[in-house]
């Protein structure tokens, strides 16, 4: 594994004048080597190049959420290492982590009635609460109308959009989303996918877990987890073969014309 040398490697943190933009960098945005969490995931090694929109798929209980939490530095891996843009996670202090990567939980429970806007503004905590890009993030996730509503009175899909807007506001180059599409209505699914695509085009990396394999087949890269182990990594057409789908998911794949949805 290549370690970042001071001065030679570009920092994972965008310089202050570049805030809001996502700085492109040549390294692997995320690298896991032999990541293990007993009983959940075992010996997962994975490299995600910058600028990629990556889908993490696998049956229920395969370890997708655990993998995302390990990648986000929230769950310590008992074995193996995690690095962001070539920097081992141990070298990144807490506040800087908030600028390098962000994680969106599968489900959020809000005990207190913070306004939607103030929750999204929390994404700027690691930037000294400068409010930069908060309104843009609200607009992007279709939350302007809800900006002053308390978050503990929102529907599941609305809450999910608040979390995504907060992640967007961080401007972190590495975005780790745990089933972001599950509670969303069809239009917002397409909007969020479009947003993820834009982030990747700008040089960011998005790793999201999802269950809809038809959506997954349109992403750049697919990571398949099965029983806590890495089963396959690659382009969708290489990975999502009839054999793998039958083996991992227990489903029979068939190409057929069906209902296709697109943004107007």
């Amino acid at each position, binding site marked *: 594994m290549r370690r970042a040398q001071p001065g030679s490697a570009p920092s994972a943190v965008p310089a202050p004048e570049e805030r809001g933009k996502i700085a492109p960098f040549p390294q692997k945005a995320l690298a896991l080597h032999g990541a293990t969490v007993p009983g959940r995931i075992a010996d997962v090694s994975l490299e995600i190049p910058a600028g990629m929109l990556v889908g993490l798929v696998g049956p229920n209980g395969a370890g997708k959420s655990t993998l995302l939490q390990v990648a986000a530095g*929230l769950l310590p891996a008992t074995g193996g290492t995690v690095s962001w843009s070539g920097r081992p996670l141990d070298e990144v202090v807490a506040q800087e982590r908030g600028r390098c990567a962000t994680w969106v939980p599968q489900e959020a429970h809000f005990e207190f009635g*913070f306004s939607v806007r*103030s929750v999204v503004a*929390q*994404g700027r905590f*690691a930037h000294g609460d400068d409010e930069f890009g908060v309104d843009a993030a609200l607009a992007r996730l279709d939350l302007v109308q809800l900006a002053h509503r308390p978050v503990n009175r929102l529907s599941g899909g609305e809450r999910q959009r608040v979390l995504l807007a*907060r992640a967007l506001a961080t401007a972190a180059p590495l975005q780790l989303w745990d089933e972001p599409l599950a509670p969303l209505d069809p239009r917002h699914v397409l909007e969020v996918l479009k947003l993820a695509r834009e982030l990747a085009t700008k040089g960011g990396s998005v790793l999201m877990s999802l269950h809809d394999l038809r959506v997954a087949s349109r992403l750049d890269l697919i990571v398949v987890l099965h029983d806590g182990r890495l089963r396959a990594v690659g382009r969708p057409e290489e990975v999502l073969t009839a054999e793998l789908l039958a083996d991992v998911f227990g489903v029979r794949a068939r190409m057929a014309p069906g209902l296709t949805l697109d943004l107007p």
Partner: protein
Amino acid sequence: MIPSRYLSWAMPATLFVLLVLAALSLMIGDMALSPARLWQGLLRQEEMAALVVWQIRVPRMIVAMLVGAALSASGLVMQAYFRNSLASPGLLGVSSGGAAGAVVVLACGLTAYSLWILPLAAVAGAFVATLAVIALARHGTGTERLLLAGIALNALLGAVTSFVLSRQTAVFNRQTQILYWLLGGLEDRTWEHVLMGAPIVLAAALLWPLGRPMDLLSLGAAEAQSLGVDVRALRRRLLALSTVLTAVATAVAGTVGFVGLIVPHVLRLLVGPEHRRLVPLSLLGGSAFVLACDLITRCVGDIRLGIVTALVGGPFFLWLLRRQT
């Protein structure tokens, strides 16, 4: 939605109420003082009034304010820590832990050696209770589990206090002592108690800048960490501060319930959940609430502070429980 008109008002209004209550608390009592006599007493122009004001009422007023600020801020911190608006030092047994610690050293006669033995023992007792609550109910846990843990701890630590005190009939006036520690009170507080409560000021000052990270923590520890909060360090600090606040308050005034529950809750209803506002407001609001309750004890006569806060707080708590479900 939070009516924004309250926001700019909240701080000056709370401060005003606090000042009015402070003035009243210097005037009302066994010997009522008119504003003019109070003024003479404050300036030491009249001997009798000066004695009452400076030796009795001012220390009592300061202790009341310290205790109120401490308990209310402590409750606020626990609510953010456990992500549960029903958490508070009284309900979780932290106050009982402080009281048990204090009573044990009182019974052993150790308090004669130093002024600081009593608060230190209260801090030790409160820490034991805090650690037990954390072990029993994990962070972000359901109300049910948190309150059940609190019930068990309160019963256990209350039993320790009662047991120790009931063995001490020969040494202490048992009735007074038990009532004192279990019901809390501000009678006969002296400048010594003010000094004993001084760590509250320090703890409050250390808590002041933690409002912003508390916002993030109160919506989820993992999320807060992902957003750049050093969650482990923050949690350690919050836990130490809230325990010390409760313990010192308990050491100077016995267990006074419900302050840490009511004050942050009412303030949250008024100004919203942002802790940068809630931390200073709950310090002031807690001071005002305990001063007001202490005034009631003086006006009604022969009623303990803990009884007044419980009489106000009990129904309020039930209303909250009803509202939550």
